[in-house]
């Protein structure tokens, strides 16, 4: 009788432990998914900002039609990107077009002093940062999740319920981590 109770208690404890572990794995996996969604939100935000930027700059930059058109074009291509590989290529092109534009802005002191332009510029700088910080957070979350999946005892539960490791956004090497940045200063 006593041994039966002891076995029962032990079994219940083990089941509770497994449930807790499973839940924490699910939570971590959701955090990874959420972090990935954040990157998309920020990329979309950048697309939304560009018409504003072009609109504000248009009046001041009559002679730079080419630069402005290049941005608009890069934006529409980035928005229409289908695959992940395609998206990362077109987003890169958009970043490049923007940094070219910002170099040209240096020649227009009136534009640089315009409050509305300064506002759009701040939003754009911040969005670029937000893109790189949400990528950074995504990688952090993937690291926690993968660690949990690989380490004992959570690896047992992860194996039982077929949790798959998350993929890093980019290689975790300092030199290759550098996201191309727009420098506005």
């Amino acid at each position, binding site marked *: 009788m006593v041994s039966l109770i002891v076995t029962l208690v032990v079994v219940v404890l083990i089941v509770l432990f497994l449930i807790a572990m499973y839940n924490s794995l699910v939570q971590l996996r959701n955090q990874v998914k959420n972090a990935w969604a*954040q990157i998309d939100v920020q990329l979309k935000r950048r697309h939304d900002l560009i018409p504003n930027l072009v609109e504000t700059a248009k009046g001041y930059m009559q002679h730079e039609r080419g630069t402005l058109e290049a941005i608009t074009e890069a934006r529409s291509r980035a928005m229409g990107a289908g695959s992940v590989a395609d998206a990362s290529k077109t987003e890169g092109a958009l970043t490049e077009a923007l940094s070219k534009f910002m170099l040209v802005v240096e020649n227009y002191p009136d534009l640089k002093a315009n409050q509305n332009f300064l506002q759009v510029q701040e939003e754009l700088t*911040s969005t670029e940062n937000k893109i790189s*910080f949400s990528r950074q957070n995504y990688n952090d979350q993937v*690291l926690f999740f993968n660690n949990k999946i690989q380490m004992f005892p959570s690896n047992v539960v992860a194996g039982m319920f077929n949790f798959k490791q998350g993929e890093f956004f980019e290689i975790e090497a300092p*030199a290759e981590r550098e996201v191309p940045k727009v420098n506005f200063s």
Partner: protein
Amino acid sequence: MWELIRANKRHSIVLILLMAVVLLGLGYLIGSVFTANMKNGCAMYGGLWGIAIAGTIWFFLTVLSFSSGDQILLAASKAKRVNHDVHPQLFNVVQEMALASGLPMPKVYIIADPAPNAFATGRSPKTASVAITAGLLSKLNRDELQGVIAHEMSHILHRDILFVTVAGIMLGSIVLMSQVFLRGMFYSSLGSRRRYSGSSKGGGQAQILIMIIAIVAAILAPIFAQLLYFALSRKREYLADAGAARLTRYPAGLAAALEKISNDHSAQLACANKVTAPMYIANPLKKNKKAAKLSDLTSTHPPISERIKILRTMAGGASMKDYSKSFSQVTKNDSPLPAAAITDEIIGIRKPFDQPGKSSKQQKQMHQLGDLMRIVNGFVFLTCSCGLKLKVPPNYKGKTVTCPKCKKQLSLKKSI
């Protein structure tokens, strides 16, 4: 990160329990003193009464601090909640750091004070708030502001904010009780000497002994509680610095901000005291030269010059491991970071967004400081489509303003 948060929570609970023991012990002794004049047997019941009273005080203060501690602290520091339009850069930087740490966006407050400082408060990451003084905000460039906000975000991430609130309240109740008791003893002893001088009986010596113990305890308990509290809060400052370096991938940003704070000569922050001091990024209570030499035990923050040096020495990477390596190199001591914080992740340092060292001109800074103070004090800022910025005072009654440059009518409806 989860291991670190768990370890932090454990340390906080241990400290809060220790402080509770101090508080209840003090209550017991004080209770014993007040009933020591009665029959000897009653002294013990008096002690229990003391515990009950101390526990009740603490319970109510804790309930208060849980339900609205952050609101009280923010109101006491005269912080005003702001939205994106008031200071887009601040709001954006907070958003950036919330994204980097994977936390929900905290509420953003500005304190209308020229002294440079910042703090974070709240019960949980979901209800957290970040507050920064107008003085600090106008001094920093983007990278430095990011460093400061990342430091505050790390406090939220590491669950330090709840700990500071609860421990601060606990310390406050201990100080309160011992103050009331000591003053009560002082005044009553003036009168009671005459009253009881003739009626000294057998229990007199025991009474005096209890009284002496209680007085000594009442003097020492707040000091002891403070030392406990400050010891942990100093460690948390280092940890938050390490967290800021890790979140921004740029330790030099926070270092430059701390340099600006330490080189500042404006008056001390108006709404800060010894209990709220540990939650600020740098000690808001300016010391005079003599006090600065006091031992490290009584300071709420590590020396700012040391924090700067550690951040500046981080060359290899921005991980917590790099920070603790740099800490040992600078101070020749063991790292204050808990073992759970140090993982094997490899994190590189990024390039600055702004040119380091490029700081805006003094005049521009003062201009910005003035603007911030105006916003917090209820001014409405409008930007006309011609690019001109209008500052409308809070006592302006009309519904529209005419732009002096392009004569366009601007509506005041879109106020903050």
